[in-house]
């Protein structure tokens, strides 16, 4: 089949979806959708359609990035407009089928908005305020196309860049990528074109292309969503990279904890092979290249590029000293290009729309867009893709919708265990590689976690350090022992055993670990501690000097207390839920916590009915009022 024929078939398939004669139901079933209950919704639609004998197709799609509104369902109806419904439950399905699929009521009260612009009150989704701040390149298809139907990708312009690339000189492709200013999205921001050029110029065969889909940051999931929602763009980017550097074999190293992404990528690879977009003599060009999936075995350090190559070789993934650079001697000692999932995904776009178009987006030194995983205390959690240079404030307030409830914003953690916590004053920092680094954070993995006044900065620093410390491979003693020392100090501080000189000691240790470690894990592990000290030193001091945790988080520094005047007396919720039987009832019916028994699990506070709200936390623990002796009679 020629590519024109492939395209024609793909268009026909795609048109049957959005312009077919039968209604079409798209259900987001990426991991986040599934967790929110998307699979029972799929089942409910299939059953309801069969029961009513309605002709309609149900397709599982990826994620449009609005995780907090999942399960999301798009109903495409011939001769009418497509509507997207949010937080869909199986119970809603009969209504949707009857009202909009069989009749003409689009149930706009259940909808997020329409997918096509229509006149009237209906909200047009791209015009939702958050989308106005977004700039979707990598996520343009996410949630709209079937990730395991290559036709959908092709019908939306997919693989034209590969066709174009195969007619170009490999050196010209590298030139174009260099000109675009694309920098790697795996964290460090190394210029992609330069990496490719170095590898292309190394006169050794064979060469390898590796895609880093290890995504080890414990709060990031962009790569997973890209692979679950539109995997072909990553494959196309890898094939172009291989052609540009002269590689014949490629690997996607993906964490085993992403079974759905692995499944969808596996199908996508097969489909690409079937159309001869991958494999021997691609599209008759004489160029051959194939991709193998290697499943990670769970170790954060494996995400480091030299470590990852050892993992593919079946060895322990411990980073090595450079040089030699991987582009000269990488996998099995051969020249290797290793890039992040998103880095490859930009490549087809750059070739089709041109380097100048790409470099027109973003800032002077950071081109294009950045994809962030928004999580934590935000109203809208999920994915966001914005032009580089967008400020953190826009990301958190305009797109993320600000902090949930009536709480106040305290800090944003960006870049995961290698990143930092930035306070309110830093929110006007533009998100680009260099500005974030100056602020003490990093672009890193792209995890953005918003914290409110209920989050303790010392505890947060401890959390990330605990992670890095566990994940240190142990090769460098500064990293292995230094992170442990820092963690011990933080544990002391959060337990009320801190000394004021510990703050300086932490800073000193941090500098030594940064200087003395071989890889990025050790070199960045102290960042969460350093930024919290830099911006929230007062919280450290409160823990150390007053033995007080201002956010009421650190267990050893808080106590639970039942306000006698608020306790309803008749209700027994707290008494029943307490796992250690620490709550007793006085003669007057007031509930009292025995502080010596209390395990501080917080259950009593959670079950105390909101209308009473009698359970509070106090810090320091000795601020609990002494129990009044009740007079009998």
């Amino acid at each position, binding site marked *: 089949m020629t590519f024109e024929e492939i395209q024609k078939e793909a268009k026909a398939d795609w048109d049957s979806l959005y312009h077919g004669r039968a209604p079409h139901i798209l259900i987001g079933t990426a*991991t*986040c959708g*599934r*967790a*929110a209950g998307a699979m029972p919704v799929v089942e409910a639609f299939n059953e309801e359609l069969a029961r009513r004998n309605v002709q309609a197709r149900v397709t599982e799609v990826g994620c449009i990035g609005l*995780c*907090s509104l*999942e399960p999301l369902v798009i109903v495409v109806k011939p001769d009418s407009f497509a509507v997207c419904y949010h937080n869909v439950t199986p119970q809603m399905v009969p209504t949707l089928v009857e009202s909009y699929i069989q009749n003409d009521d689009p149930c706009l009260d259940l909808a997020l908005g329409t997918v096509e612009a229509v006149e009237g009150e209906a909200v047009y989704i791209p015009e939702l305020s958050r989308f106005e701040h977004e700039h979707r390149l990598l996520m343009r298809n996410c949630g709209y196309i079937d990730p395991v139907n290559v036709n959908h990708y092709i019908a939306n312009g997919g693989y034209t860049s590969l066709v174009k690339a195969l007619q170009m000189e490999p050196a010209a492709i590298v030139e174009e990528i260099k000109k675009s200013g694309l920098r790697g999205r795996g964290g460090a921001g190394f210029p992609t074109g330069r990496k490719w050029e170095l590898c292309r110029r190394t006169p050794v065969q064979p060469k390898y292309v590796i895609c880093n889909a290890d995504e*080890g*940051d*414990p*709060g*990031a*999931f962009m790569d*997973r969503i890209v692979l679950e929602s539109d995997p072909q763009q990553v494959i196309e980017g890898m094939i172009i990279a291989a052609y540009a550097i002269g590689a014949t074999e490629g690997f996607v190293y993906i964490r*085993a*904890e*992403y079974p759905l992404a692995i499944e969808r990528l596996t199908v996508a690879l097969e489909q690409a092979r079937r159309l001869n977009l991958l494999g021997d003599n691609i599209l008759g060009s004489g160029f051959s290249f194939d991709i193998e999936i*290697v*499943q*990670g*075995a*769970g*170790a*954060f350090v*494996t995400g480091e590029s030299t470590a990852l190559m050892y*993992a*593919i*070789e*079946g*060895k*322990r*993934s411990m980073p090595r000293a450079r040089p030699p650079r991987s582009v000269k001697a990488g996998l099995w000692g051969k020249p290797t290009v290793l890039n992040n999932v998103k880095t490859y995904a930009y490549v087809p776009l750059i070739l089709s729309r041109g380097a100048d178009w790409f470099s027109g987006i973003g800032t002077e030194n950071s081109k294009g867009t950045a994809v962030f*995983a928004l*999580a*934590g*205390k935000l109203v809208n*959690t*999920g994915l966001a893709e914005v032009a580089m240079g967008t400020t953190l404030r826009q990301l958190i307030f305009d797109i993320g919708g600000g902090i949930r409830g009536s709480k106040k914003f305290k800090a944003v*953690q960006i870049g*995961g265990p290698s990143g930092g916590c930035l306070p309110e004053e830093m929110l006007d920092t533009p998100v680009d590689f260099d500005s974030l680094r100056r602020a003490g954070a990093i672009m890193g993995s792209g*995890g953005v*976690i918003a*914290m409110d006044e209920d*989050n303790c900065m010392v505890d*947060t620093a401890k*959390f*990330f350090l605990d*992670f890095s410390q566990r994940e240190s*491979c142990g090769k460098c003693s500064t990293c292995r022992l230094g992170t442990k020392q820092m963690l011990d100090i933080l544990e002391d501080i959060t337990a009320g055993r801190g000394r004021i000189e510990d703050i300086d000691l932490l800073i000193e240790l941090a500098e030594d670990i940064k200087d003395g470690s071989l890889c990025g894990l050790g070199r960045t592990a102290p960042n969460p501690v350093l930024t919290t000290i830099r911006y929230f030193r007062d919280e450290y001091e409160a823990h150390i000097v007053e033995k007080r945790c201002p956010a009421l988080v650190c267990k050893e520094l808080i106590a639970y207390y039942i306000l006698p005047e608020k306790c309803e007396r008749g209700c027994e919720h707290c008494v029943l*839920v307490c*796992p250690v039987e620490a709550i007793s009832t006085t003669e007057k019916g007031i509930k009292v916590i025995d502080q010596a028994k209390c*395990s501080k*699990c*917080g*259950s009593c506070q*959670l*079950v105390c009915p909101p209308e009473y709200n009698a359970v509070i936390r106090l810090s320091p623990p000795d601020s609990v009022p002494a129990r009044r002796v009740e007079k009998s009679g």
Partner: protein
Amino acid sequence: MEELRKELADILLADRKDRRHLIALLQKVQQKLGYLSREAMLAIADYLKIPESTVYGIATFYNQFRFVPLGKYPVKICMGTACHLAGGALVLEAMARELDIEVGGITPDHEFSLERVACVGCCALAPVVVIGDTVYPRMTPPKVEELLVTIKPASKKAAK
């Protein structure tokens, strides 16, 4: 024992006999048996003609590998960033208390095992607990007990 050897042989022979595939082999064996038994690791070393210490060295380096079986209901508590900030540690503590086992352990009746994982990718629903393939969103200590009861009505008693 015989059965194990045969099962292992099936897995091993289906794969290429190459040092490179050691990690993949360990993954396959673990998937089949639920964990890496001593016998299984020795068999792999024998099959690939590499020292047993190499197999152990790899298996103990990576977090994915476990050396005790999983329970019938494998419980995983998310300890990723979003879940931590939303109180994941309290959920873990409650789960460990209810099941009366520690992280990495299994109940005496082999019904429940307990592990911590880092971000299962549903941060919007934090904190989450995963049991088998099901994700339980927005967990709290009081919900832990309820959850265990619905999963296996007699579980609490059995576990104790």
